[in-house]
Each structure stands twice: as C-alpha cells, then as structure tokens.
C-alpha cells in the first residue's frame, strides 16, 4: 500500500524498503540499522531522518530507550580540516 522506494534518509538516499528489509533480516537496533544502511550517517548528521528511523522501529515494536540511540559523534557540523588543526 505504501511505497517501499520512498526515501527516508535524504542525505544517503536510503529507502524505506531498504530499512525495513535490513530490520527484518537482522532485528537490529537503531544504531545497527544506521551502520548497515548508512541512514543517519550523511551530511546532516542524522538530524532529518533520526526521528523517522525511531518511528519505524516503534512500528516494529521497538520502543526507544531513554538513552539517545543514534549516538552523536563530534564534530556535529561538517568542518574543514584546516579548522580542526590541519594545514591550509
């Protein structure tokens, strides 16, 4: 009824179908879903699709834990190497 091709992670163009298939195959956590499909690992740092991934898992019966499941790794903004201390 709904489209499996629909993009969930806009940055990495990971589709709803890909996420559902991966979850069905591995029964995994949000973090593992991210590592397997790259959803949440794009330029926006998961800001746009994070809640969608959690919603998808909730629909499959996985209630989010209190701990932030898709961990944030600094830098939380894309920064140039020169800013981080590299040479120009």
């Amino acid at each position, binding site marked *: 009824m709904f489209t499996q091709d629909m993009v969930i992670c*806009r*940055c990495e*163009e990971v589709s709803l179908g890909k996420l559902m298939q991966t979850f069905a195959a591995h029964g995994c956590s949000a973090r593992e879903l991210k590592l397997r499909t790259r959803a949440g690992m794009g*330029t*926006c740092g998961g800001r746009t699709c994070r809640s969608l991934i959690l919603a998808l898992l909730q629909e499959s019966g996985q209630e989010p834990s209190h701990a932030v499941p898709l961990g944030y790794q600094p830098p939380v903004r*894309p920064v140039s190497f020169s800013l981080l201390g590299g040479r120009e």
Partner: protein
Amino acid sequence: MDRRILNHPVLGPSAPGKTLTFHFDGKPYTAMQGETVAAALLANGIRRLRVHEESGSPRGLYCNIGHCFECRVTIDDQPGVRACLTLVKEGMKVFSGKVLPAPLKQAKSPDASEKQNSHFIAERAESR
C-alpha cells in the same frame, strides 16, 4: 511576477534596501540587501540548488534554517555552504552542487576501471 512580499497587513512594508547583483551558475540575478542566497534564488524562481552527489536527483532547500544541509552550494570557491544561512553580497559567485565522480563504484572490469580512473585523475588534474 514579483515573488517578494513587499507589503504585509501586520508586518508592514518590507524595509527599503539596496538591490545587489550576484551570479548563480554563471548567470546574473538581482537580490535585495538582507536576503539569503536561498531566498534570493527563490525570489528569482530558482528552486533547484544542487543534485544528490551520487544519484543526481534534483534538490533544493528543505528546512531553511541550517539543519538539513540540502541547500548547500559553492560560494566564491568554498563548497558546502548553506544557502539558507548566507546573506547575498554584491558580486557573489554561487554554483549549484553537481554529481561527484565515484570511480570505484563505476568500475566493473579491470579495463573499465582503468578507463574510469584515468578519466577521474584527468578531471582532478584539470581542476587544479
């Protein structure tokens, strides 16, 4: 057709300001002082700001407040700049985002890989 809201029933008239000229993909456009690159382009009817770097699907602004990075463009040689957070300056040169080469993905056979890689290397050499 003016896409700018010059008069608003509660907010009043928009602040009078200078007009600026900037370039997008080589063409000149007019902006009002105080407009972001994203807003100025939209005022000129332009919605497509880049394509997805792998698939080539057209993209434009989405959140307009700097969270989603969909509006990233190259401004005065600096790539990845969010158009929704950047005010237009006179003479600014903005370029839309393009598909990036992915030589490892394109390679199917050793021969093909050589051809793709040499093409990629040649492109890089040219851009230096």
